[in-house]
């Protein structure tokens, strides 16, 4: 039956030609192959976000007077609403985690070098967008923590010299964080960012498909020395089935986290209340937050805040363009980039831990 439908379609659309490249695609098999899974898991979690996000839209109400109550309604009245929202929140956090893991694995396996510079750039832009999803989505329940996190986060944008103030006003929809900000963030979260992400994912996947999988230089060298050690598996179905098993595990982790640790809602935001003690951003912004905290308020004659924000911006830009600083294969990758990558990983992990533990 299904075979007959496929044949009918194939006769008319020649789908085989479209699938053909996937049949030829292979994945190198070596001791680090498991790192290739993280991009796929991130994509899968993005799919979970799309589905649960659409479901949340059935009941969510943007607006300073309705948002908190509508999420409360989802959590308490709608059947399995708590589950859908918890999965959306947990999947968001896991997606950021796997995206970071994917980024660092690409960095350490040197998969960003020629000819894959643009794959890296599109991936970094996706990482920024995913963080934008996190930042905008965090405000939507309109609770106290989210309200002040948004206040601080947008104020940081306002510190950027020259363009900061107009950008902050644009993000907030006015000089203050109000219901107008909530409506804007809602629009970014459900329309602007998804559109951009879909375009970038398409480009990213096209490039991955076009360029094939990268083999880490060390393993490539081993294979050149000993050609009989070279192994690959077919992407379809061998690698895809393994990838799907990883997705299945991800689903299990997600379901368990959502059921055992349902995401709580907190207290409704009061724009005229004072900020609660111990307020912190989401964990994936902690390293930046903590960096800004440890910079003294005046460094020489420059404002510490401004220095930190401009520094973070420049670091982000450097990261985005990192492939263009490295050498082209087959020459050895530059040592300092590996050093910088290790430093970055330690810095992000260390500052996050510091930020988590600091009072």
């Amino acid at each position, binding site marked *: 039956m299904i075979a007959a439908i496929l044949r009918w379609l194939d006769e008319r659309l020649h789908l085989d030609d479209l699938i053909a490249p996937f049949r030829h695609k292979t994945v190198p098999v070596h001791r680090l192959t498991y790192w290739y899974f993280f991009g796929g898991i991130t994509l899968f979690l993005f799919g979970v976000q799309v589905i649960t996000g659409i*479901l949340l839209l*059935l*009941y969510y109400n943007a607006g300073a007077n309705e948002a908190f109550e509508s999420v409360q309604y989802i959590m308490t*009245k*709608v*059947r*399995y*609403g708590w*589950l*859908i929202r918890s999965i959306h929140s947990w999947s968001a956090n896991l997606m950021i985690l796997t995206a970071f893991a994917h980024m660092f694995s690409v960095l350490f396996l040197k998969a960003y070098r020629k000819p894959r510079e643009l794959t890296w750039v599109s991936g970094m832009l996706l990482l920024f967008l995913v963080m934008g999803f996190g930042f905008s989505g965090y405000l939507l329940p309109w609770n106290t923590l989210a309200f002040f996190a948004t206040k601080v986060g947008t104020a940081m944008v306002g510190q950027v010299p020259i363009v900061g103030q107009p950008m902050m006003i644009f993000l907030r929809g006015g000089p203050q964080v109000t219901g107008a900000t909530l409506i804007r963030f809602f629009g970014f979260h459900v329309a602007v960012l998804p559109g951009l992400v879909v375009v970038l994912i398409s480009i990213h996947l096209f490039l991955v498909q076009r360029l094939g999988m990268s083999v880490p230089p060390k393993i490539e060298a081993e294979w050149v020395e000993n050609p009989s050690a070279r192994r690959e598996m077919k992407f379809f179905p061998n690698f895809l089935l393994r990838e799907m098993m990883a997705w*299945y595990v991800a*689903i299990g982790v997600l379901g368990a986290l959502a059921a055992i640790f349902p995401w709580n809602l907190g207290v409704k935001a009061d724009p005229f209340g004072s900020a609660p003690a111990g307020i912190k951003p989401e964990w994936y912004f902690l390293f930046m937050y903590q960096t800004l905290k440890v910079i003294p308020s005046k460094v020489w004659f420059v404002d510490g805040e401004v220095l930190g924000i401009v520094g973070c911006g420049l670091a982000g830009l450097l990261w985005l363009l990192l492939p263009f600083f490295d050498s082209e294969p087959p020459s050895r990758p530059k040592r300092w980039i590996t050093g910088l990558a290790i430093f970055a990983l330690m810095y992000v992990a260390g500052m996050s831990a510091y930020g988590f533990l600091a009072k």
Partner: protein
Amino acid sequence: MSGEQNTPPGSTRRRAIEYFLGGGILATFASFLYPVLRYVVPPPVADLGVNEVVAGKVGDLKPNSGAIFRFGSSPGLLILTSDGTYQALSATCTHLGCTVQYRGDLRQVWCPCHNGIYGIDGRNISGPPPKPLTAYDVHLRGDEIVVTHKREA
């Protein structure tokens, strides 16, 4: 399918594995689908228990006019007839659910969607409405006009 005798040894085991795998995946999807299906059906609205509302104050309405009031989660129509008696009806047209209005010029209740006409007592007179509008009890409490569901006899 061809040649059951030629089945290689172990293919029953393979098939059993396939059933387990397929069944497991199906069960997984069912376990996703069930909460989602329950989720998309909105929970019942809570304010169904309303049995009595204050539809207005004496003197709000001119004789031979009507006004819409909220009766729980649905609209009601309060009419002050030209002879000075109050009448309350459900304002939801029995045809396709539009909200009806009182027409002083016709001295009848009119649904603008498909030109349905009801009498002041709610009886369906002409046009598409298949059933009369539900009539409610009206009584005065001080200067408040109180509307209640008709007691079942």
